[in-house]
């Protein structure tokens, strides 16, 4: 644990100012499941959303690219009429 880390108030703040260690950090004073469950799902949702969007954009561009190659002349005609 890098020693320059800030002070961290441990469980219920009785012995304030003590340096934390990693497993204590993950235990979150016994609430690890709830805290990490929240943060984890949140991160997951955000990341999944972004990934889905990127995929959507990629497939869309591919499809439109294919379409524009096939019908680009046709599209123009339609617009002129």
């Amino acid at each position: 644990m890098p020693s320059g880390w800030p002070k961290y108030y441990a469980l219920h703040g009785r012995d304030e100012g003590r340096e934390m260690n990693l497993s204590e950090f993950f235990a979150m004073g016994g609430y690890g499941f709830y805290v990490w469950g929240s943060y984890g799902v949140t991160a997951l949702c955000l990341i999944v959303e972004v990934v889905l969007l990127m995929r959507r954009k990629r497939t869309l561009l591919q499809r439109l690219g294919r379409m524009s190659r096939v019908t680009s002349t046709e599209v123009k005609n339609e617009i002129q009429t």
Partner: protein
Amino acid sequence: MKSRHKRLAFIVAGLAGLGGAAALVLNAFNDNMVFFFSPTQVFAKESPEGRNFRLGGLVEKGSLKREDDGLTVHFVVTDTHKDITVTYKGILPDLFREGQGVVAQGRLNPDGVFYAEEVLAKHDENYMPPEVKDALDKGKAKNVATPTGATLITQ
């Protein structure tokens, strides 16, 4: 011309209706519509008899007693005017503390003891580190304690 008059009439009627709705809402909030009953209400026989209801209030300081099985607990719920003893068998929520808000669901026995089937902790909207709390408690203990109680008791 004529349709404009109509439109005006519609708007007036609409506003009147909204006013009426607002009045009814206020009326409803004046009345008691509660998630739970306070001990005072229970003593005033406002709470349902012979069926389950929710009892809310503060856990009286120093009233919590555990039985030997480690599961059954007794404590007193107060709204600073009246007290009711509650018996509960089960796991208490972590936020359950003496002096803190609690909502218990269960029924009132004729002996005046409230048998709870479910206990929920209600807490206040203050967030601060413990030492600040200590300092506050030392200084103006009353001011901090009242809002907690107030949220529970006001309806």
